[in-house]
């Protein structure tokens, strides 16, 4: 229990009499609950969006790391020589981490889906494939192409996933924007609660004056308001988070084809993240109301 600060314990502890000293105010209650629900819903959505962008950036990034393939098409008798030459060129190219000629068995496995298992692949003039693993910096593809043209005329450099590089950068940027949006939503929630609490404190000036007169401390008066707004924001955020989660559950997921648009569903432990939204919203409301109450009360006699 020592871990919970007194202030938070005061919010959690129900003091029916203290709750009653501030008059109930129906309309602003509903507005506060509605706004925090909307904010929580947006947070869940943006969170799913950010996590999906993050996953996308990661998946595509991994594919980029083993991006290129070198294909050598040449009469069978020159194959071994050209393969060796190509590997030598690749070894000398800066930016290539590893280059490896695929074995016959691996090549056969690659072709099997296309020709079926019964076709005697051995008898066909199959080109030799070389897998190229890049370093993070990548290599100069134009230079490599020119050099290969001169030394290994049968080689074709195939950078089939290079076009994704800017997309990966964009996906990372989108993820960053998403998290920034969540921070903005949290700040907007704090601003909204501050406005609502200020309005409530102003509307209840007489109540506060009476409480001061009969010997209530600022802390007592502040708690009556802080507790109310913290709980309202929490319940609103819980409602919004539940709706947001339901919306995400309804998104079709696990589809290979759709890629980005269909992968908004959360994965693994990420399902736990939305659960943190209501407590965090409540914390924001707690801090905002506390600050507003202290400011207003400090200015009174």
């Amino acid at each position, binding site marked *: 229990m020592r871990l919970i600060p007194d202030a938070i314990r005061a919010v959690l502890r129900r003091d029916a009499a203290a709750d009653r000293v501030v008059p109930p105010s129906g309309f602003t209650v509903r507005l506060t609950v509605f706004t925090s629900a909307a904010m929580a819903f947006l947070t869940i959505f943006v969170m799913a969006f950010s996590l999906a962008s993050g996953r996308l950036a990661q998946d595509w990034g991994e594919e980029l790391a083993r991006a290129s393939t070198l294909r050598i098409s040449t009469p069978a008798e020159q194959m071994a020589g050209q393969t060796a030459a190509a590997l030598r060129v690749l070894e000398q190219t800066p930016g290539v981490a590893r280059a490896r000629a695929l074995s016959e068995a691996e090549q056969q496995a690659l072709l099997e889906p296309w020709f079926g298992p019964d076709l005697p692949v051995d008898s066909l003039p199959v080109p030799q494939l070389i897998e190229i693993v890049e370093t993070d910096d990548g290599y100069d593809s134009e230079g490599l192409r020119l050099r290969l043209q001169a030394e290994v005329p049968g080689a074709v450099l195939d950078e089939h996933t290079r076009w994704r590089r800017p997309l990966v950068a964009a996906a990372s940027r989108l993820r960053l924007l998403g998290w920034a949006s969540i921070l903005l939503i949290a700040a907007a929630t704090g601003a909204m609660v501050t406005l609502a609490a200020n309005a409530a404190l102003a509307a209840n000036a007489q109540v506060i004056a009476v*409480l001061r*007169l*009969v010997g*209530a*401390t600022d802390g007592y008066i502040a708690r009556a308001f802080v507790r109310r707004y913290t709980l309202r924001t929490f319940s609103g955020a819980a409602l919004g988070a539940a709706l947001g989660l339901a919306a995400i559950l309804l998104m079709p997921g696990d589809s290979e084809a759709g890629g980005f648009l269909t992968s908004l569903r959360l994965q693994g432990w990420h399902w736990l993240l939305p659960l943190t939204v209501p407590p965090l919203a409540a914390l924001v409301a707690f801090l905002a109301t506390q600050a507003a109450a202290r400011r207003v*009360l400090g200015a009174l006699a």
Partner: protein
Amino acid sequence: MIELENVAYSYGGDALLTDMSLQLAPGTFHFLTGPSGAGKTTFLKLCYGALKPTGGQVRLFGRDVTGLSRDAVAYTRRRIGVVHQDCQFLDHLPLSENVALPLTVSGQGSPDQSDNLRELMAWVGLVDKTDALPPELSGGERQRAALARALILSPDVILADEPTGNVDWEMSQRLLRLLVELNRMGKTVMIATHDLMLIRAAKAQVQARVLRIANRSLQLAGADL
């Protein structure tokens, strides 16, 4: 209990009150009089820490007000019962909860207090108004309710600002009797009023001293009243 030493107060411009000295001893009964706007309310506010003096020193229960924190002022106020002319209540709570409010805010609200509360309500004659909301009460009932609220914590001092300002003569007599009774029980009482009839009526019942605010300063009025 309440001591003023060369106290001055100004609301920014010229001083409203200057050079006031007073020692409010336990068990005394004081009237505070003077023309409207002379500063009676300001004087009372200085006495319960709602205002801090701009000059001189106010000591409440031996502690200098100027150095008190806001919380310390709140704690001090629990030992001083205040009744205003236009007494304010929490309009959404029934009278009994309003009268018990000082108990509630000081964390002493408990079912054990309900006997005390009933007794007090009977003493001020408001038993049948227990569940009424404050806006439903008449002026005299509000004054008595405010007195009951000022008394629930059993304070040492009772300060009343024009307690009979809004009520008829008969009711003001009734309020006065309650205050005199309190004084006989040992409480220190100070009543600000410009009603000389009330002061004369009181002098018949209790040994009261009359303070007058005139020429921005506090004077002990003669016995000629």
